[in-house]
């Protein structure tokens, strides 16, 4: 009873705080100062057709690096706590054979999913999407592969390799921005190019592709760890 009263009191408190926000909300006629700068100067300065991408990758690039680092830390912690099975244990477990429908469907769908994921992060400066979205799509492709073949335990070396190389290259491009352009993670180390074409916006497509590969590899690694974890771990 006391527990329920406390819960209701907390809910009422949160509702009160949110009501303050709701009551003071008025629709703004003009953009705030920073947003106006991004909206007006962004396309000319960085050459990215998708304004969200130019903010995420360049203006707030350091935050994105932080997000990728958080994801990496999470993947490492999951790997630390879940011990994987040895090969003999995996063979002894002998899971049920997966169905023919799943096999055929996966063989047909996975290449399409991978290509779509790559399209989403390569075109991140032109259309909605980008590294995180494309990486998640690629990870769902690897998830399908894992579901179709629960016995095989290969691919972990490849996942780790892709993750490390793309992470190092991401930071390397960021540092190159200090020397060749105006600062860390500046995209103008390459020519900005013609607005709205695939080879434009300087280094943004490269950076977003690296983020996409890294996020895809990290999420795949988490799924791999969960799939391969020991029963009693």
């Amino acid at each position, binding site marked *: 009873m006391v527990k329920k009263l406390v819960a209701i009191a907390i809910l009422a408190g949160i509702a009160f705080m949110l009501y303050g926000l709701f009551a003071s909300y008025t629709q703004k006629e003009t953009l705030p100062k920073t947003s106006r700068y991004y909206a007006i100067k962004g396309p000319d300065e960085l050459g990215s057709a998708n304004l*969200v991408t130019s903010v995420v990758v360049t203006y707030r690039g350091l935050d994105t690096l932080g997000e990728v680092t958080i994801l990496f830390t999470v993947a490492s912690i999951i790997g630390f706590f879940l011990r994987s099975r040895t090969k003999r244990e995996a063979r002894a477990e002998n899971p049920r054979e997966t169905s023919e429908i799943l096999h055929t469907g996966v063989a047909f769908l996975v290449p399409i999913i991978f290509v779509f994921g790559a399209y989403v992060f390569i075109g991140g400066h032109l259309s909605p999407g980008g590294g*995180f*979205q494309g990486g998640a799509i690629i*990870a*769902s492709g690897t998830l399908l592969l894992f579901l179709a073949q629960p016995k095989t335990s290969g691919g972990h070396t490849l996942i780790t390799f892709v993750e490390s190389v793309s992470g190092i290259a991401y930071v390397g491009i960021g540092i190159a921005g200090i020397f060749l352009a105006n600062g860390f993670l500046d995209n103008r180390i390459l020519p900005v190019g013609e607005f709205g074409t695939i080879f434009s916006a300087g280094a943004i497509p490269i950076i977003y592709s690296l983020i996409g590969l890294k996020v895809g590899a990290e999420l795949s690694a988490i*799924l791999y760890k969960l799939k391969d974890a020991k029963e009693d771990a």
Partner: protein
Amino acid sequence: MSFFLVLTVVLCAVMLGSAGMALYHKNLAATVIAAGLVSLVASIIYLILAAPDVAMTEAAIGSGLSTVMFFYVLKRVRGGENG
């Protein structure tokens, strides 16, 4: 405009319903599916609010990957309080 308003209200109702189901349903597999449904509806609402980038992330991670991760974890903790 009013079409989108009605659609948003309906989607919010679906979202609240599935969130309640995620909290109170007895079957754990059903609650995981309901939690995924919350994310799916949220991604549609993001799309109506003209934020396609966020909608893609929510659909891929919220309703796709995290649902599957919950199922993996559910497989590990079988035999707990509610079986």
